[in-house]
């Protein structure tokens, strides 16, 4: 039985390792999040916005050509069709409603690929709250279209220039902002990472993905459960959402696809479950890439959204206990899969999602298996990268 403990642990992973300056805010969330998000009026508004603003339920699409190629029944859960182009908005809608309940006036967030930043800027515009997005200086360069979208939505984008200037450092800067603004500010974390209750909070908001999958699969196949669910994992929010209502259905194989970068052992990789060891990152005890001295190592992936040196504590627990199987896919194979899906299904996936598509080549399954791949985002933001490889694939 996979269950969060009272103190916010999945097995030995999780908890809240935070400096005292963050304690009152985190405690406020810990004490209130469950009662607030399950209140009737909250649920009503959350589901109304998911339906009419985000465009849920997202389709569960039978990818016939992909199925024929891989000799199985493959469905794509079309999170790429959500407003703003990825699953990220499921969480930001939930958290902005929570921020309003907590009377916060100012929203901060970190972003890697920019999808969470855009999703946060979007809901802040909708709700009329000030929005500050921290983004690594390196990521600002490689995800320019999303930076422009955030600005057009009225957000202030602050370049994180400390450390390696990517997602890890943007997260550090957002946490420091929260320390400096302890009363009026809510921090919308974009993934199932950070101190308790964030991993659980974000997973609950993203769990709408697997909730819909259950009823859609029942209608399409006559049973709620697929044989496999495949999702990419950086921090792991789309995977957490796709697994959530299946965590204790042991007949469903959960496949977590990490970014191998230029190769798991190339020194330029983000395959945390293989390269990581137990430690603490961003307030959570989990698996992370670090030196023997405990310094956090900068990962590499062609996809900014998977370029994170840790994984959420839920995933650390699922993988170390064998409940989920970790697979890693290189930059090159993700690119191949992105072009393949574009050409045979007419769907351009995000680079992050492309890793999950390629996993079909890396795992074994039976021709009778029903597989759901969580198509977490669309590839518009990655067009610059894709264009570089147009002649190659």
């Amino acid at each position, binding site marked *: 039985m996979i269950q969060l403990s009272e103190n916010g642990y999945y097995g030995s992973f999780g908890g809240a390792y935070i400096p005292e300056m963050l304690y009152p805010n985190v405690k406020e969330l810990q004490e209130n999040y469950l009662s607030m998000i399950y209140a009737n009026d909250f649920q009503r508004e959350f589901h109304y916005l998911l339906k009419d603003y985000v465009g849920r339920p997202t389709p569960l699409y039978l990818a016939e050509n992909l199925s024929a190629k891989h000799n199985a029944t493959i469905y794509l859960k079309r999170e790429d069709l959500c407003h703003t182009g990825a699953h990220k908005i499921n969480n930001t809608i939930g958290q902005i409603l929570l921020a309003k309940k907590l009377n916060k006036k100012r929203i901060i967030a970190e972003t890697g690929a920019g999808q969470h930043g855009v999703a946060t800027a979007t809901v802040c515009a909708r709700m009329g709250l000030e929005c500050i997005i921290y983004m690594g200086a390196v990521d600002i360069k490689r995800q320019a279209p999303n930076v422009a979208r955030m600005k057009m939505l009225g957000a202030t984008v602050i370049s994180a220039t400390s450390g390696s200037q990517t997602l890890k450092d943007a997260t550090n800067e957002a946490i420091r902002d929260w320390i*400096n603004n302890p009363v009026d500010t809510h921090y919308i974390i974009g993934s199932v990472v950070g101190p308790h209750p964030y991993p659980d909070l974000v997973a609950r908001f993203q769990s709408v993905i697997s909730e819909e999958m259950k009823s859609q699969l029942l209608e399409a196949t006559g049973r709620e459960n697929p044989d496999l669910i495949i999702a990419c994992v950086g921090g792991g929010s789309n995977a957490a959402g796709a697994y959530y209502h299946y965590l204790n259905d042991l007949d469903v194989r959960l496949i977590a696809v990490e970014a191998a970068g230029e190769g798991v052992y190339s020194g330029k990789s983000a395959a945390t479950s293989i390269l990581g060891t137990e430690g603490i990152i961003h307030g959570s005890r989990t698996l992370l890439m670090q030196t023997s001295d405990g310094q956090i190592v900068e990962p590499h992936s062609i996809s900014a959204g998977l370029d994170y040196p840790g994984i959420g504590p839920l995933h650390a627990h699922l993988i170390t206990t064998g409940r989920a199987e970790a697979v890693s896919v290189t930059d090159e194979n993700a690119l191949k899969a992105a072009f393949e899906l574009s050409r045979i299904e007419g769907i351009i996936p995000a680079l992050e999602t492309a890793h999950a598509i390629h996993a079909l080549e890396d795992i074994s399954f039976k021709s009778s298996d029903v597989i759901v791949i969580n198509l977490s985002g669309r590839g518009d933001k990655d067009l610059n990268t894709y264009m570089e490889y147009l002649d190659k694939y």
Partner: protein
Amino acid sequence: MLNRLTKWFENNRENLLTVYFTAGYPQLDDTETIICALAESGVNIIEIGIPYSDPLADGPVIQESGMAAIDNGMTLQVLFNQLADIRTKTQVPLILMGYFNQLLQYGVDKFLDDCVKTGIDGLIIPDLPLMEYEQFYKDKLTQRNISISFLITPQTEESRIHKVDALSTGFIYVVSDSSITGMKTGISNQQISYFERIKSLQLKTPQLIGFGISDRESYLTASKYANGAIIGSAFIKHLKGKNEVDKATADFINLILKP
């Protein structure tokens, strides 16, 4: 084992000057020089920062010094090697400040044993939860007579302040403002009323005020409301680019202590 910090507090309760520096900065081997120069200049307690790649509670000055120190080759093992003979040089109370992940990777027991061997008197681990300390580490520190100091902030509730008072065995680190280190200078009236509120609680543990203490004036003001004050970022900033760190250290402390 003697704990120089708690011993010190038995007889000294006023205007205690504590100074933080990042081990391995500006140069890898400056650690001993800086400790000795601080002690000789009249600093009462020295806080040695273990450089970390992701120091959540620290501002840009300490972050940058930490990155530079890591690039210089500083690790916990190197630091303990540098401190091996420090007790033949000075008896000033020494505190290590670091993030919990560093201790976990080094091994908490090994870390504590090495603290005993080198004569470290106390620890500050800002991201170690009180409950986890109480449950898993309190006995280990007590057995080795190593003290620990927890933080409070303007937002810390009174019931929690009493919990911090009960668990802290060194001092209470009174964070002067809602901020990361090195962000603000000067002390506002709002901060003064917070200091007065803490003082009126008559806590058992000595209190030192830190964050935003940068010069003689803020040190003296803070010391009126607590047992003393902690200077960090301002000292690191002063050391930047200095070749003769012993002289630079003495110059900086003289400006704080001498009218």
